């Protein structure tokens, strides 16, 4: 009844399920045309400058300070998002309280809310005369139009990643181990730091890496609140837009390639974390 594949493919393991050629071919075609070809075009454009040309762009003081800003603030924001994200995930899975479901749903708000909308909303809240900006200003902190504003927008963007990566793992912690630890005389703090936390580290790291990657590339929510001052609050994606406005396509492509390279490295890091975790803890 069911035909075996006429040609023996050595590429994939034989299976009775049909449609490999079609689905695999279609996947590769789409991936190639929509993702890989355009990205290759970008790299080709940048490589027109030569390796030394890209290096020159990267070490240009304005570019390097924008890259430092984007990566630096994003790392701090991802760290804060990870810490609070962990706390939120813990509270949401471990405790029962009224409105928990609502809070749980709210975590995904930054996914669903368009970045431009988030940007104007954050800018109006944190401006010196805004609801949160005014009290901060009295404390001597200017949030909007400084790197602090960028930080706030990046925490907003990154938080769901931090929460959603650890949440399922917290839910699966074997309570009996905790109980055993408690029975053996460990206090709660020791149980948490020695027994509960270590297996969660890979997930926390993954969440951190994702929040970091999103923060580095974020544009829409940041430009409204950042101030966009060269050397102070100008993020790398904005600098790409500015390079375009100056008709400097090579420069724009070079910055984009650098950012793309770092995205790749982040993805690679996530994969490595997960491989390591699979080996160390038996799950990801």
């Amino acid at each position, binding site marked *: 009844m069911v035909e075996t594949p006429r040609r023996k493919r050595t590429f994939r393991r034989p299976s009775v399920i049909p449609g490999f050629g079609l689905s695999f071919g279609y996947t590769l075609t789409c991936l190639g045309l929509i993702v890989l070809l355009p990205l290759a075009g970008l790299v080709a454009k940048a490589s027109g400058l030569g390796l030394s040309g890209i290096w020159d762009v990267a070490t240009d003081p304005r570019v390097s300070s924008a890259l430092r800003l984007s990566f630096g603030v994003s790392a701090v924001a991802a760290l804060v998002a990870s810490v609070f994200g962990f706390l939120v995930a813990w509270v949401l899975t471990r405790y029962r309280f009224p409105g928990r479901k609502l809070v749980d749903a709210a975590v995904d708000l930054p996914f669903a809310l368009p970045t431009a909308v988030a940007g104007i909303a954050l800018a109006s809240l944190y401006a010196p005369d805004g609801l949160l900006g005014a009290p901060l200003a009295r404390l001597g902190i200017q949030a909007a139009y400084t790197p602090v504003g960028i930080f706030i927008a990046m925490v907003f963007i990154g938080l769901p990643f931090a929460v959603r990566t650890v949440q399922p793992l917290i839910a699966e912690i074997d309570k009996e181990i905790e109980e055993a630890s408690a029975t053996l005389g460990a206090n709660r703090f020791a149980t948490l730091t020695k027994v509960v936390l270590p297996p969660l580290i890979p997930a926390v790291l993954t969440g951190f890496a994702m929040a970091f990657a999103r923060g580095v590339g974020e544009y829409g929510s940041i430009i409204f609140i950042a101030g966009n001052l060269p050397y102070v609050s100008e993020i790398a994606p904005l600098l790409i837009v500015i390079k375009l*406005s100056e008709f400097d396509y090579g420069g724009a492509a070079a910055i984009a390639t650098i950012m793309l390279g770092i995205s790749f490295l982040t993805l690679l890091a996530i994969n490595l974390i997960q491989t390591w975790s699979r080996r160390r803890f038996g799950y990801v």
Partner: protein
Amino acid sequence: MKNGAVRNRALGLTMLVGAGLVSCLLPAQAETALLNVSYDPTRELYRDINAVFAEEWKAKTGEAITVRASHGGSGAQARTVIDGVDADVVTLGIPSDIDAIAKLTHKIPDDWRTKLPNEATPYTSTVVFLVRKGNPKGVKDWADLTKPDVKVITPNPKTSAGGRWNFLAAWGYAYGQDKDAAKADAFVGQIYKNVPVLDTGARGSTVTFAQRGLGDVLPTWENEAYLVLQEFGAEKFDIVSPPTSIYAEPPVALVAANAERKGTAKAAQAYLDFLYSDRAQAIFAKHHYRPIRREAAAPADLAQLPEIKLFKIEDYQGSWDEIQKRNFDAGGLFDRLSRAGR
């Protein structure tokens, strides 16, 4: 055989999806519409101009016409035309942006400034200061912008025409004092040390200053300053006109290659000619631009525009190619100043 049938049906599905993709790659259907790619603060102006032009065109030829407009930082707008926006005309903030389109695409002839009267500039403007009510910091002239306690809000000269005019106006003021270019460079550097926010377009800077309450003075297009009084309330801000400022020329040009291909050249040319007509000139004055034919404008509108001694930056720095290169290109004065400022 079943596999074959499946494959065929699935193939058909793929082809359908493919056809869908291809069909959306086909050009959008043509309509009698002109596209005017303009710079940031002209949104309100061209809304009026376009409506009146459409009316006149209909009366004259019997054809309906829509003029669409697109606005943004002047450099960013020029970039979209270079990358292929089908603009019939460009009305940008500064000559060098139209030069860039001409140079990179050849869609505009190199001698575009000779194609229309007054070096293709149907109206001019200048840079004035918008300050908070009562002028608490006592800003009167360009030199006051260098005071350490004065925070200046201005757009990024790399992307904004208004930002470039501000930059050049400050430089020209200093150069006019004692004709010393090095001193003028340092003077401009002094001002940019007082800039806390550098938005990408004139509009962004206005929002920062007027809506967000940042900074003490906003050097800006004269028309933009009056618009802020209208939109945000005259009780919050004052306009200070410095004794000397720059003669700012936002030029216009026909994007010949696009208009010819689309068959809209006649209408596009008529649109540009219309900008020099009495009606258009009066509308410019109404929006606080300086019409080149003052006799066409309402005296009440003209009375609002004070006498300011205006200088042409070309008299100080030469051709627009040189101006652009000296100040704004990579490694130019602005780059050196912002690097030194850190």
